[in-house]
């Protein structure tokens, strides 16, 4: 159960770690949008080099990156192969009823590269940002929407709490499962309906404890005079520094270069 790690943060003190989380978030979005604007394999490779050099900056071992890529390899392979067969164009070779085209292969490679870059880019964000940083970045970025009545502060608080309690609830699930197994609960055998029914002794205590925790947390927050996030100051106020501006300029410049290189060559 504990293998599920959501947005595992790697502690570090790299250039990227020191960036403002808002900058990190926006640059990641820019990178992802760029991936969908690229039209050729050389450009894709440049995008890959760009993200890999960012990994080098953070000194995250390539092993970690491969580990996070592993689960999606089957999906990438599957869609690439499908694409290879179903895109029309100049035939390269064929067997039985299928024909593989040059365009098909090109598209398949593009797609795989794009998915890899996509995952590498978004993983880099979660590797270098704590959940708290991310939520405060989101909160500040969505702040303008508060003017039209969106409860931005409350949503951010909800998100922070939800993220905070994921590990706690996983641990709780482990404990309850151990207890019910000790009482002879049979969780691994039986048909579908039996298995679903076997979950009741786990889900009910889990819900009960989640509600209990929510009550306690609400009480604790009220005791500390929490009354909605409006006007709340924070311990680490986010500030855009000069290094952030430089990072934005350099990164946007590189992205523009990659996009434009396609135009020039073509």
């Amino acid at each position, binding site marked *: 159960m504990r293998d599920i790690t959501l947005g595992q943060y790697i502690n570090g003190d790299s250039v990227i770690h020191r960036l403002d989380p808002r900058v990190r978030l926006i640059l990641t979005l820019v990178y992802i949008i760029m991936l969908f604007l690229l039209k050729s394999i050389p450009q894709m490779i440049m995008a890959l080099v760009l993200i890999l050099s960012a990994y080098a900056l953070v000194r995250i071992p390539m092993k970690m990156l491969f580990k996070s890529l592993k689960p999606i390899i089957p999906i990438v392979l599957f869609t690439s192969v499908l694409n290879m067969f179903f895109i029309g164009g100049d035939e390269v070779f064929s067997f039985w009823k299928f024909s593989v085209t040059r365009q098909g292969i090109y598209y398949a490679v593009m797609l795989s590269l794009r998915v890899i870059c996509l995952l590498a880019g978004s993983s880099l964000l979660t590797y270098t940002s704590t959940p708290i940083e991310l939520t405060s970045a989101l909160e500040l970025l969505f702040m303008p929407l508060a003017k039209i009545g969106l409860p931005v502060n409350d949503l951010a608080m909800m998100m922070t709490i939800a993220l905070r309690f994921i590990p706690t609830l996983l641990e709780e699930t482990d404990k309850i499962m151990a207890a019910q197994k000790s009482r*002879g609960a049979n969780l691994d055998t039986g048909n579908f309906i039996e298995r679903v029914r076997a979950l009741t002794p786990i889900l009910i205590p889990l819900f*009960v404890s989640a509600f209990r925790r929510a009550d306690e947390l609400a009480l604790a927050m009220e005791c500390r005079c929490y009354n909605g996030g409006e006007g709340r100051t924070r311990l680490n106020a986010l500030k855009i520094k000069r290094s952030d501006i430089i990072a934005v300029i350099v990164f946007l410049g590189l992205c523009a270069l990659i996009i434009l290189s396609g135009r020039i060559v073509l």
Partner: protein
Amino acid sequence: MSTLRLDNVGFTYQKGMPDEKVAVSGVSLTFDEGDFIGIIGHTGSGKSTLIQMLNGLLRPTTGHVYIDGDDIWDDRSKLREKRFKVGLVLQYPEYQLFEETVRKDIAFGPRNLGLSEEEIQSRVEEAAHYLRIPEKLLDRSPFDISGGEKRRAAIAGVLAMRPEVLVLDEPTAGLDPRGRRDILDVIRNYHENEKKTVILVSHSMDDVARYAGKVLVMNAGGVFFYDRVDEVFKHALELRETGLNIPTVTDILLTLRERGMDVDTDIYTPSGAAETITGYFRGEESK
């Protein structure tokens, strides 16, 4: 005849990962039938990990656990059956309650054993009787009874399975002194009547000294001492040096000795201490 034997048992969390952590290593010992064994040790000394290996919740990364001579991991299809011989009450067991009534919740374990309805009901009654749960409480929801009652209902749920070995992980955690004594008396009562093996994990040396016959002292994932209570507390000084609690009485006697009173320090009951101290003063008077 039911003994629990551990042979060079070890457990490592996240084995093979960079953050692997050895919780238990090289534990070889036997829990004999009918004994009342107390397990003590610091937080993180491997107590909880060890007892979770006794009923196959965790698989030892090294070594074997034998119940009545059978390795419990020998045949996975029989694991569940072997697990029934060792009843494990985990910490804060009240969080495992889930049924509509206390009666149904206590019946969950026996029902999983595949017993007849009559047998289930008689076991529920029996367990409720041991845990001193009044009849009228049995038909209430386990979610609106008091904390101490919840704890007892949860323990009854394991007791109703009539395990050969009953293992309790800090059953008194978070209870007031009265609740602690109630639970421990219930356990002693059960042990004396049923002659079944009872293993009690505790933080309190006083409780262990008062209730257990043998003590297993764990330190840094290994066995520090495993012997009869009086034998272990002969090493009170060593225990104190490793930072473990020792029974309050022994602690006082040790301090008296350090201050120059020649008293016997292998004592862990108040009455024994009273005897040795009065004995000392009589000796002084007659000099």
